[in-house]
């Protein structure tokens, strides 16, 4: 039974969310969205009395907020969002994110959309999962050209939140908030430590034992391909058509 790259990532995201009560997923994030739906599915199966509150921006059905766009940010400040996902055109070894562009600001060589809510949510959400499929030296850099959201640092700034790690097409790095560095924990099947080193532009630590990222079992795969794919189609019809054509 073969497991696609996307299915492995969806499964891994769901595992990272297992102890969460309330999860929000931002724009352009079909895989985190599907992973959060899977985590919700597991919680409902294991503990029917507890619900995982899930907000997928861009979806009207998977969205329980009624106070406008500000509500997500207020909820984060209130401690009512356990986990959120952030990415970036560049991510550096100290966990700083660049969603603005490369080169000299503001006339950047490449311009990305902008910082969105990253500069704020990165400080306030306890479990920020950095998610970026492309694992390359142009994305994972020693130092970002523009800091949209600053990585954790000892600057005395109120910061109950921050990154727990970085998930890519190759591996899962945990983020050590006291050392301000990433630590390689698991490598996805089919890839090696050498692949990760060759494609990572920043310095990182390596866990004493590196394991292979676990794969979903047959029942989980069936759940991802069936109900989860159908649910995420509400917000990401194009993604589902491409990756799960049978569910589209």
């Amino acid at each position, binding site marked *: 039974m073969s497991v696609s790259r996307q299915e492995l990532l969806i499964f891994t995201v769901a595992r990272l969310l297992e102890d969460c009560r309330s999860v929000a997923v931002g724009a*352009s994030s079909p895989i985190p969205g599907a992973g959060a739906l899977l985590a919700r599915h597991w919680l409902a199966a294991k503990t029917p009395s507890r619900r995982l509150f899930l907000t997928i921006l861009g979806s009207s059905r998977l969205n329980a907020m009624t106070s406008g766009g500000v509500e997500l940010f207020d909820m984060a400040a209130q401690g009512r969002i356990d986990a959120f996902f952030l990415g970036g055109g560049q991510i550096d070894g100290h966990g700083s994110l660049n969603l603005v562009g490369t080169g000299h600001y503001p006339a950047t060589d490449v311009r990305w959309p902008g910082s969105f809510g990253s500069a704020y949510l990165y400080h306030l959400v306890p479990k920020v999962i950095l998610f970026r499929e492309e694992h390359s030296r142009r994305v994972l850099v020693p130092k970002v050209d523009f800091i949209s959201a600053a990585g954790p640092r000892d600057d005395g700034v109120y910061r109950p939140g921050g990154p727990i790690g970085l998930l890519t097409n190759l591996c899962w790095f945990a983020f050590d908030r006291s050392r301000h560095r990433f630590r390689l924990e698991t490598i996805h099947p089919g890839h090696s430590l050498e692949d990760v080193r060759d494609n990572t532009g920043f310095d990182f630590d390596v866990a004493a034992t590196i394991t292979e990222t676990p794969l979903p079992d047959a029942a989980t795969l069936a759940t991802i391909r069936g109900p989860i794919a159908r649910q995420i189609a509400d917000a990401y019809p194009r993604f589902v058509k491409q990756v799960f054509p049978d569910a589209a």
Partner: protein
Amino acid sequence: MPQDWLLGSAEALAAQVPDGAKIAVPHDTLGVPMETTRALIRRGVRDLHVVCVPIAGLQVDQLIGAGCVGTLETSAITFGEHGTPHRFHDALKRGAIRLLDATCPAIHAALEAGRKDIPFTPLRGVLGSDLVRHRADWKTIDNPFAENDPILLLPAIRPDFAVFHAPFADRDGNVFIGRRRELATMTQASIKGALVTVEEVRDVDLLASEETAAGTLPAIYVAHAAIARRGAWPCGLWDLYSTDEAHFRRYGELARTAEGFARYLDEFVHIKRQAAE
């Protein structure tokens, strides 16, 4: 009741916006006033200060491409899955607009300060971001109520107008905005209120029932409205109609160059004027 708030067209609405005005505009899922945008381009408005609540897409790319924008204040410019904002990128490269890069909660918070007409508001997070370095109008202070707690201060945003598109107004000019509360916030923060296009005016009273009143922007905040059927096109409107993907593709091909964008304007924006001439 005389409907003095109701103007005859989006052209009349656009005529209310003077050069140099500061306008607040909504992001793509709220109701993008594309018909008003086309009317603003036809009128040749200049030097707008556009505040995106909290991000924007096609509307702003077109206003920039047509030379209408002096200052852009936004947390992102994106077409989502529907292409690249080439005119925005081109303007940045040429230094043709002043860019005030922000983050979504900062724009929301500054508008909430604006609607209270207080001069500034604090916001958590953000410190350490280069956004702060490039925003001379943002300041960091020590929390006066605690020790060792630096915090960001943002000046309030008070636009001249909020400009958006909504499904309908009632006969008294109350506008239905559903749960999209940021439309109320940005309108109430605006000195002159909302310039809003609607799909239709219904002969009902939205304030008469508790259920509809909760999702209503009262008429006192509405400067003027006009009917514009499919006024968000080619953007979608709520669950009433969806994004015209084919048109976005066409726009994406043409707006890649200044010449192509000019042809787009001739074909899809200046048509009314040509018809009148």
